[in-house]
Every structure is written in structure tokens, then in C-alpha cells.
């Protein structure tokens, strides 16, 4: 029951992400636009390119969706509203999202086209950049909560949200999630002006619809994870817990979507260089600082 309800919420969330995305990119707020776009996609032909690797081509969009759904399973919207409160929840999110890379590589390789291929390679490079910056900030969050339970992580922020307790970790995690969700300015893998859509370029019709749905669910899942790890989850005054979760998740989503609109796409070499030479030392520093704080503060 909870699962069905949460899946429904996730669908609504994904829809709202689509509305916000259209709004941030075109400046027009139209509630019905994604519904028309989705119907139009379903009505269009969906072909498998000649000489494609059919298994990879067909699997990739579904795998992207499943990977995002799996990660969403351990995210609590209220103390009770969670699909499964795994004892290893915080790590499970990371484990589930690893398949995003696999899905995008398959989508890059599958259609046997140059643009998609380069897009896939680029995401492989991107993984090397963002992966550590997802795990290491989570480590610091877990240190404070002294638990991998996502519900426990929210409870641990009752006095002070992690965004204040470990702002460095928040910034790193936020940027790394944007890179993981290949949102601009980290959209190297889809890069409209460089690769004509990259891994998305050859998909059409229903398959493209699944791919885009997977991406939307991925975005909202990462926004929800940011809320759970850093923004105190469902906690907040006056309003009921679910409302706080919804407001915070949508606000984080909007910030993620809006940020890329005002800057050019990052260069791949810069992304790799900065993540390794700046991001990882900062993430280590964050773990050290949180460790000291955990020991010093009561």
C-alpha cells in the first residue's frame, strides 16, 4: 500500500519536475505541457536504429528508470512514509545510482551512432568525477547520525540541519548530484549543442518517453536525498511532515534545474580536474571536520 502510494507520489513528483524544467528553460509556466509532450511522444514512432545493439538499446531507458526507483525506495517522506527503511539505506542509495552509469553507457553504445557513443564515454568520465563526491559527503552525514538508516539521519538533524552543520558536504553533494543527474552545466552526456542530444539522440517515441521519465525520477530522487541528508527531511514547524518534505524537495529541484540555465556547460577536463584536485580533498576535510564536531559537541 505504502509502496503504491509512494510510486504515485513519485509519478506526481516527476511530472512536477517536468513542469519546472519547462518553466526554467522557456520561462513559461504551463501545467499541462508535459502531459501533451508525453502523449505526443507515445504517438510517435519509436525505431531501433539499424545495426544497433538491440539488447543494450532496449535495456538502457528501463535500467535508468529502475535505478532511480530503487534509490527512491529508501527515502522517507515522513517517519512512516518510506518503502523500505533499510539498515544500510544511505549506502543503498549510492549502490542503486551506480546503475545510472551502466544505463547511460548502454544507451551510448546501443544505437551504434557517433554522437551517442561520445555521450556515453563522457558519462564514464563524469562518473570518475562525481562518484567520490557522492559517497564521501554521505559518509560524513552518517558519522553524525551514527546510523545508515535514512530515517535516523533525518532524526539526527533535529537540533541543527546538516546544511549548517556541514555546509561543505552539502555543496559537494549538491554539485555531485547534479553531475549524476546530468543536469546542466554537467549535461556533457546529452549536450544539445555539441552532440545533438548525445545518448538521447537516437531514442524516439515510447523509448524516449521512458528515458526521459527515468531522468525525471532520477532528478527528484536526488533532490529528495539532498533533503534527507542535509535539509532535515520532513522536519519543520507548523506544517505537517509530508508538506515539509514536498516543499523542500521541490525547492531543491527548482534550484538544481535553474542553476544550469545561467552558465555554459562545464568542460570535461575541468570537471575531472576540479573534482579530483579540489573536490576530494575538500570532502576529506569535511569528514575530518565532522569527525571533530561529533567528538567535541555533545
Amino acid at each position, binding site marked *: 500500500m505504502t509502496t503504491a502510494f509512494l510510486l504515485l507520489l513519485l509519478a506526481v513528483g516527476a511530472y512536477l519536475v517536468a513542469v519546472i524544467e519547462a518553466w526554467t528553460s522557456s520561462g513559461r509556466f504551463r501545467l499541462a505541457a508535459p502531459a501533451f509532450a508525453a502523449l505526443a511522444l507515445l504517438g510517435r514512432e519509436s525505431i531501433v536504429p539499424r545495426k544497433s545493439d538491440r539488447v543494450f538499446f532496449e535495456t538502457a531507458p528501463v535500467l535508468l528508470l529502475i535505478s532511480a526507483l530503487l534509490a527512491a525506495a529508501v527515502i522517507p517522506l515522513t517517519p512512516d512514509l518510506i518503502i523500505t527503511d533499510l539498515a544500510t539505506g544511505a549506502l543503498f542509495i549510492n549502490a542503486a545510482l551506480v546503475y545510472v552509469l551502466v544505463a547511460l553507457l548502454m544507451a551510448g553504445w546501443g544505437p551504434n551512432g557517433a554522437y551517442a557513443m561520445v555521450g556515453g564515454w563522457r558519462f564514464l568520465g563524469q562518473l570518475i568525477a562525481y562518484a567520490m563526491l557522492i559517497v564521501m559527503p554521505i559518509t560524513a552525514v552518517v558519522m553524525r547520525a551514527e546510523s545508515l538508516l535514512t530515517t535516523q539521519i533525518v532524526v539526527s538533524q533535529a537540533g541543527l540541519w546538516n546544511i549548517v552543520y556541514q555546509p561543505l558536504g552539502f555543496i559537494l553533494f549538491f554539485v555531485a548530484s547534479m553531475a549524476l543527474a546530468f543536469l546542466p552545466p554537467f549535461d556533457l552526456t546529452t549536450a544539445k549543442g555539441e552532440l545533438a542530444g548525445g545518448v538521447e539522440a*537516437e531514442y524516439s517515441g515510447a523509448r524516449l518517453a521512458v528515458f526521459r521519465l527515468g531522468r525525471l525520477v532520477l532528478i527528484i530522487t536526488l533532490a529528495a536525498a539532498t533533503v534527507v541528508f542535509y535539509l532535515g527531511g520532513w522536519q519543520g514547524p507548523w506544517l505537517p511532515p509530508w508538506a515539509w518534505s514536498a516543499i523542500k524537495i521541490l525547492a531543491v529541484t527548482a534550484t538544481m534545474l535553474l542553476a544550469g540555465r545561467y552558465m555554459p556547460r562545464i568542460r570535461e577536463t575541468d570537471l575531472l580536474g576540479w573534482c579530483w584536485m579540489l573536490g576530494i580533498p575538500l570532502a576529506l576535510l569535511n569528514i575530518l571536520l565532522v569527525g571533530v564536531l561529533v567528538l567535541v559537541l555533545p
Partner: protein
Amino acid sequence: MIIGARPGKPSKLRRLIAAAMARDLTTFIIPGPEIVRSYGLDIDATGLKPVASPRHASVLLVAGVTSSALRDAAAVIYAQMMRPRALFALGAGELSPLPPADVIAGLSQQGLIQGVRQLRDAFAEGAFRPDVSDFDAPILHVRIEYTCPMHPEVVQNAPGACPKCGMNLVPREVQADSEYLHTAQHKAGSSTDIPLTPRPGQSDHHGINHDAAVEYTCPMHPEVIQSEPGSCPKCGMYLVPRDAQVESSHDHHDHAHSQEHEHHKMDHDAAIEYTCPMHPEVIQSEPGSCPKCGMNLEPRKTQDIQTHEHADMDSATDHGSMDHSGMDHGDMVFMSMVDVTKDLPRSSDGLPMEWIDAPFGPFFPGLPGGLLLTLTLDGDTVAGSDARPLTDNLDLSQHPPTDSTSFVRQLAGMDPLAPVAYRLLAYRALENAAGLDVPAGTAAARIGAMERERITSHLGWLSLFGQQSGFNWLMQHAASLQLAFLHADVTQAMALKPVMQALIKRLQRTPLLKSRTAGIGRLTADTALRGPVARASGVNNDARSTETACTTLGFTPVSREGGDALARLHVHLDEISHSLVLIEAAGAIELPVLADIGDVSGAGETMVETPRGMARLQLTLERGQVIAAQLETPSTHHITLIDSLTEQQSLGDALMAVGSLDLSPWEVRQ
């Protein structure tokens, strides 16, 4: 009704979907968004959504008259679009080989708006039809040719072995009647069918099976031969077809070919003996470990003893040389990567990879429309490039005598990105040849018009830059400003000044912009450079410096040091600011019609600083008729720089470098 409807009976559900499609029309723009805007068309206002890949587009919009090469490329795009698809022609004239347009309208904003309305109706009513015929065009026909995976220069019509390395040639598709190998494949704006790895689907396509004696083999493991397509049991690669009889032709004993060795192995598979990789003198007929060092013995064939011992006697280095790789220690199954890749072209990092030719253009989002850029990609590094315009370029050398009015019309219609500059160039050359003087007021108004065009052209370039670099705000904002400036008078232009300044200010503090552009496409100061490209390299080369009409209005050339994409961006921004100052000083924006030059004869030469740099025109008049003319344009030289600018750059940087040149394919002189 639309010609490219999707086959199917219009059921209730389909009608609902068709209604949704009508409200969500995506479009692929030909020749390009910046050119369509220069015609004064505002696509965004109509609600059509431009997309980057033809696979995602439902409407193909063709604006203005296009060359036959561009129409061929457009036919490929149309074929790549998913049904239901519609063709929308705006003042396009001849369309073949494209199908007849579903909606035809004039080249105006009103025509655009009406056309989109008609398109929506057409989609709502006729997105699904039971009787739909396929689209076909000569450009879509392919034939199969065979090439070596290691030696791309080896190309032949029949399957066989590579004369250089003996590997089996792999099939690939090329356009049936093409003289160029690579342009043939340009599925512009979308992915190509260049086989990165030969796939099984290929073999049952277009009759590769014409020969009964086709068998399938692995490019890496020639000993794997079977009669059915499939994957190699050893490495999983897809098997490639080959002719059975070809094998006999290279049965000579050339030990450079490991393939050859493998045949020996096949022939004499029975006799296997075991030896130590470290101690070749240890040989026994049973597997086991070496009595000297304890290593596991490895199997090898008895026949190889000769070769082996010979190698041993020579020297250790010879022993490990390519000739014997895969032979010596009995590791027959594994073909050395050194051997496989030794003839591959090398990248700068020394890592050999398969190179692929990928077309970028002629309608690639983020590159100037009409420019076909083919990049040879080595991973995502550019190993080579080829750039050519696919536009119809005005040929002035073979020109019948023309009267001045049609000469001006021809020149002004040459480049949709700079019609005013070329019209003015024609005016000035004619006036110069006829010995006419221009009143100061007219000269100032002309400068106003020129500078306004410079602003719109630079804004179009900025929008393209924004599109390419994924900077959406810039792409949209510059595009709407381009449209606002296009027909602005002096007052309107001055009213837009604060908006323009805010844009420039914002760009100065945009994160990532500097790291995205600094050091990219660096050009050293060279007098052959023109326009903003030259001035970004510190070359103070501006035809306006020599015009008194300009200098009296307060013109000073803008220049920057650096010569990279960042400097070019800044020069473009500075020039926009400076052009606004000049417009204000000129006080008028007008391009008066040419005075009657009369029945004069004479020669004239003049130059104009177009938005892309100095263009020079020489012409000869004979009794009022232009009998000879010679034109020199900035993009002609700039397009030749692409090769050196993209060489060994990563794909993103290479595209940025090409984009920063602000080329206009229309003005390239061949």
C-alpha cells in the same frame, strides 16, 4: 492531412494523441535558427519547440531558398524524423528531393504564424492514416563497400582481405552515387550509421549474401569460422562476413600476419607439446610445471619449434618482435594487442583506437547552418577535420553582364547573415566605378544600417554560442535581442541599450564562461585574419578605420590580446557596445536605394567591414553593365583555419573553436 502521417487507423485513442501532438509540435530548423531569425522570423513566439536531433522533431521547417546540396541533407533529416512528420516550407521554392510541403507559407512572421496554425490542424486531423507511402530519395540509397578496420584507406567493392595486413575487410554503407566518402554519410544533425563495430544486422541488409560462399569470421580470431552470423566464442565480437575463396590468395608465408600463423595452427592442431615460458629448453608432451622454476608449462605446437628456436638463437629482442607474437609461447588464442593495433593511426597520447568520421552539420545545432564539418574522432579527441559549405555560393567570375540593379540584388541576397553589408559593398563599388559622390547624410545613415546589422549578426552569433555551450539563458536572450534589433530605428535601438549593457555585464560575471573559452582556438596575430577574429588576436585590422565617414562619427577599432575564443567573445561584445555608440552618433539608420549610375564605364574597387570582417569587391562597368567582378570575403580564409584549430582538441573544445570563428558558409568563396 500530412504526407508523413503515421500508418494506422484513426481510432479514438489515436485522435486524442493526435490532438496532444498538435499542441506539442517540435521542430528541426533548416538552415539554422540564426538564419531564420535574420529573415525576421520569431519561432519561439509561435510555440514551435526547436530540438537538436531530427529523431525528436515532428516538423521540418525549411526557410528561404536552399541549395540542392542542402536539400539533399534536408532529405536525410526528413528520413530520420519519426512519423507523423510534416514539412513546413517558408518561402522555400524548390524542395526536391524532399516531398511536397504539407504547409507552405511566405517568408514572414505572419506566414509563420498562419502556417503553424495550419500545421496544428493538420496534425490534429491527419497524424494517423491507414494509407501512407514511404519517403524515398536518391540520397538515401546506400551501397556496401568494404574497408579494413585497421587501414581506412583500403576501400573496395568486394569483400576480401586487406592488402596491408591481411585482415578481412568489413562492410560499411555509403551513399550509392557519391563521390565523397564522408559527406555521403552525413546524416546531418543526427547520428550516423558508421559501423563502429560490424553488427550482425548488417549482413542481411542490402544483399551482402549475394555470394554463396560467404562465411563468418572474427576480426580478432580468424580461426573462428562459421557459416552463420553470430558472435565470436572467444572474444564476443560480432563475426564479419568474408568470401571463402579469398583465403587461398594469401597463402604465402608472410609471417607478419598473425592470421597466417593461426592457419598453421589450424592445420597442425594435433601435435601439442608443453614448454616453460622462461626456460624454452624445457619441453615435454604432458602439461605440468617447469622443473627449473616451477611455472606452469604452456602448450604449443610442435611445428613451431623451428621458428621458435631460430628466434631464440638470434636475440631476445627479436624473440619478442611482432613477427612472432602470438606464436612463441603457445598463447595462440590471444592475439597480441600490440599486433592488432600496430598499424592503427596513433593519437598524441599513443593510445590507438578506432577512428570514426562523424558529421557535424550542415544543420548541426550550435554550428553555423550550411556548414558541413566532418570530424575524425579518436575517442573524443579530434584527429582530423574537413569543413566545407554546402550553400550555393554566388560565382561572380562566370557572370554575364548584369545591370547594376540586379547586380546589387544578387550580392545583397548572397549572405542571409549580412545582407546590408553586401548591398552596401555593391553600392560603393558601383558608385566608385561610376565616380559618384555620396552626400554625408547618406553616408552616416548607411553607417547606421551597417552597425545595426553588426549588432544583429553578433547577437545571432552569441545565441549560437549559447546554444553550443549549453548556456540557455544566453541563447534565448541574445536571440530575442537579435530580433528586436533587426528592424529597430535609432530610438528603438537606443531604448535597447540598457538591456544590451545588462547582458554584457552579466556575461562578465558568468561562472564557467572563462574556463569554457580561455585558451580555446588560439590564433596568433596574422594579417590574413579579418574582422573580430583578427581584432581578438591584437591585429588592428578594420576597414572602418580608413573611412572618414566612420572616423568622424567617433569610430575607434576595438581590439584585444589573446586570440582565443574568450578574446573573440569579448571583441564581439565590445563591438556591439561600440556599434550602439556609432548608431547614436549617426542619428539615422537607412540604406537608401542606389542612385542611377547611368551609362558609365569604369573600374571600381571598394571594401566594407562586414560583421565578419573586411570584404573587398572589384568590378568593371561597361556602359552601365557590370561585366566583371571579383569578391574577397572574410570567411574564405577563416574556414581554412579549422583544421589547425581542431587538431588534437577534445570534441567540445574543437566545436567551440569552430563556432568562435563566426563563419558564414554563404560567403565562402571556393
